[in-house]
């Protein structure tokens, strides 16, 4: 991708807006319990904030922002967060993903469920963000080679 011709307005605006999109994405992930939202929607927004920078600024800068090689491991980490939440309850003696068994002391069962949902939403959000960025990167990978 050639970025040399992008105007300073685009550069400035996208860099100014991106953090707010990211903030709103985090809000959507964390506030999914009370309003429409959750991991996938918030993750898509987080990805959008990163992709905005990717489109606007040149490669050297946006690689500092979010590195290409980071996508797949980060996504794997997201699924592992989800997976580990399920696995913990197997080790403690319940079924897979049984939030009653989460080792968080001092919470009522319903609060445990609430916390469990939050953890997996964060995992899903992380995965969705990382993968959407990674797909974008891979699809544009070698435009120059063709």
């Amino acid at each position, binding site marked *: 991708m050639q970025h040399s011709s992008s105007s300073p307005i685009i550069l400035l605006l996208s860099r100014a807006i991106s953090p707010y999109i990211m903030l709103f994405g985090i809000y959507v992930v964390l506030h999914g319990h*009370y309003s*429409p939202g959750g991991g*996938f929607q918030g993750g898509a927004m987080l990805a959008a904030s990163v992709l905005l920078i990717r489109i606007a600024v040149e490669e050297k800068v946006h690689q500092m922002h979010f590195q290409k090689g980071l996508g797949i491991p980060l996504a794997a980490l997201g699924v592992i967060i989800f997976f580990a939440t399920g696995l913990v309850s197997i080790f403690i003696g319940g079924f897979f993903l049984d939030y009653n068994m989460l080792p968080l002391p001092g919470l009522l069962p319903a609060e445990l469920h609430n916390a469990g949902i939050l953890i997996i939403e964060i995992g899903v959000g992380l995965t969705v963000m990382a993968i959407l960025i990674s*797909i974008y990167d891979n*699809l544009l990978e070698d435009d120059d080679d063709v």
Partner: protein
Amino acid sequence: MFDFIAGHYNYWFIILLISIGMYGMIFKKNLVKKLIGMTIFQAAVILFYISSSVKADTTVPILLELNESADVNRYINPLPHALMLTAIVVGVATVGVAFALLVLIYKRYNTLDEKELIERMK
């Protein structure tokens, strides 16, 4: 009769959408258009679930009062929404993979037209 139509028209519109999607997938020769047809098809199925989950005189499935027992007749059916959230993600994933394949095909054959592709593959 009128009641019947008022109660079923959403299904018929969705069938129309499904037919459009299938038409695109079967008859269009360009692979991207096939993919668009596929997306329309998936969206139609998702719409089927969502439009069928309505209930008369109800609101969105976010509790208005946080008390112990909610009234079943006050909120619409939440399950199809949850299912379709998953189905949407699956659709996104499928489209992503399809685009990756298209990029690969275009790199190797420099065309996305089905007839030409079959010619060039020989």
